[in-house]
């Protein structure tokens, strides 16, 4: 655990986000709604292509990559929306005059993000079994690795976005939705790395998600698990997460220098 961090304060903040979640049943439904809709649409696309281009849909890969990619998006959105709640409710001032440390805020946001991601993704993953006869769970233990890798990527992006939000306020809110898609073309979600032009490949090798989807294709299409790809993804994620946390802390200190914590909702 981070030095000086308190489990009590982390759980207090987590409780705040759980209270918020249970306060509105449409919110809970919405968490699972989008991943399920994605699964349904891509499921039919997959069925359509299964006869003409079987290599595109072998092993249920199309549905699987869509679901797994959504883990990244959901983990990032869940993290950042919970942070945005503090800005929208102008509550940051109250939080940071309490003994709450920024590191505890990060852990609480990551915890609620993990919970919301699971609430969102599990129904879609289970529904894919009766609807399209595709079970991502058949990947076995590697699925856990792919999932954790993408959740870490989501949190790394969230560190940058919340850093910008705390420094520049709600004017930067739209970055929440935009930034994950910046890495999507390089992530090789629906196509192998070799499809990209060489200049894009040279960028893609620095994107952790590239290794996740290359690894998933190797597993689902060829039946080969490649631990080296998984490891490369984890290493890059750890590096980006650390850089993201540093960016958040620098932004937090800048917000304290400029007096932004009291007026963060404006």
């Amino acid at each position, binding site marked *: 655990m981070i030095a000086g961090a308190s489990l*009590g304060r982390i759980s*207090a903040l987590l409780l705040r986000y759980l*209270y918020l979640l249970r306060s509105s049943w449409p919110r809970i439904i919405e968490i699972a709604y989008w991943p399920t809709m994605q699964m349904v649409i891509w499921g039919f696309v997959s069925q359509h292509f299964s006869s003409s281009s079987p290599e595109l849909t072998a092993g249920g890969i199309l549905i699987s990559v869509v679901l797994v990619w959504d883990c990244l998006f959901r983990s990032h959105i869940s993290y950042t929306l919970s942070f945005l709640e503090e800005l929208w*409710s102008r509550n940051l001032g109250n939080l940071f005059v309490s003994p709450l440390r920024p590191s505890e805020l990060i852990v609480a946001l990551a915890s609620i993000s993990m919970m919301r991601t699971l609430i969102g993704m599990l129904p879609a993953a289970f529904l894919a079994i009766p609807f399209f006869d595709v079970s991502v769970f058949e990947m076995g233990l590697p699925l856990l690795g792919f999932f954790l890798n993408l959740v870490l990527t989501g949190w790394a992006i969230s560190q940058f976005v919340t850093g910008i939000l705390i420094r520049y306020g709600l004017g930067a809110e739209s970055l929440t939705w935009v930034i994950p898609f910046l890495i999507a073309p390089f992530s090789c979600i629906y196509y192998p790395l070799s499809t990209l032009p060489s200049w894009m490949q040279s960028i893609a090798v620095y994107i952790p998600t590239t290794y996740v989807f290359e690894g998933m294709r190797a597993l689902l299409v060829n039946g080969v698990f490649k631990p080296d790809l998984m490891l490369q993804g984890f290493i890059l994620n750890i590096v980006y997460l650390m850089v993201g946390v540093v960016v958040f802390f620098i932004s937090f200190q800048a917000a304290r220098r400029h007096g932004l914590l009291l007026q963060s909702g404006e």
Partner: protein
Amino acid sequence: MCESTLKPILQTDNLTKRFSRVLAVDHLSFTLGQGTITALLGGNGAGKTTTLSMLLGLLTPSSGSIRLFDQDFIGNRFSVLRKMNFSSPYVDLPQRLTVRENLTVYAKLYGVQNVAERIDQVSCEFRLNELLDRRLRKLSSGQKTRVSLAKALINRPEFLLLDEPTASLDPDTTSWIRDFLSNYRDSREATILFASHDMREVELLCDNVLLMKKGKLVEQGSPSQLLDKYDRENLEQVFLELSKEETGA
């Protein structure tokens, strides 16, 4: 220096905050003794909110020092913050949570023991019993102010900072809050610093007044000392006198 005979809780020394070209707080030095109630007064832009923000750790000073509970607050604020709390009508609590949920979250953030019991106590003290399970957004502004004060008292702070504590409250509740704060100070030897524009409230409640103008501390003393010094009948007249000096009228 105020209350030099009392145990000092807060000491600021040449506390300064500059925002690029604007000097918001200019070498502010004062001491608050334990068990005192002090008002921080000043016109708009005098530097009151900036000062409170620095004393709460929300704003990093450009220079100077803050000692709270005999510790360096700027370098080590987390160990001190648990003994403090704050309320302001300009900083909201989460509106979608109920009063009870808000108080529970903050009680746990401050490490309060027996949370349910403490919530019962503060809800009795602030007449919130019937509001506990209502969402904050459904409350009137006066009720929200009472919830904010209950949150500020949830950890029984030894040093309480309040920004306009009776804003939006009716006269009856305002009077009750004044009595409550006075009793709280007496029973717990708590130190209270509050910013206010209500001069009547300041006269009734405060032992000391700190008067700021253009970021500087221009006057300090007890309300009676200030009235004598300026030969005025009430603090509002003193305040206006100093404002005249400011505008050159």
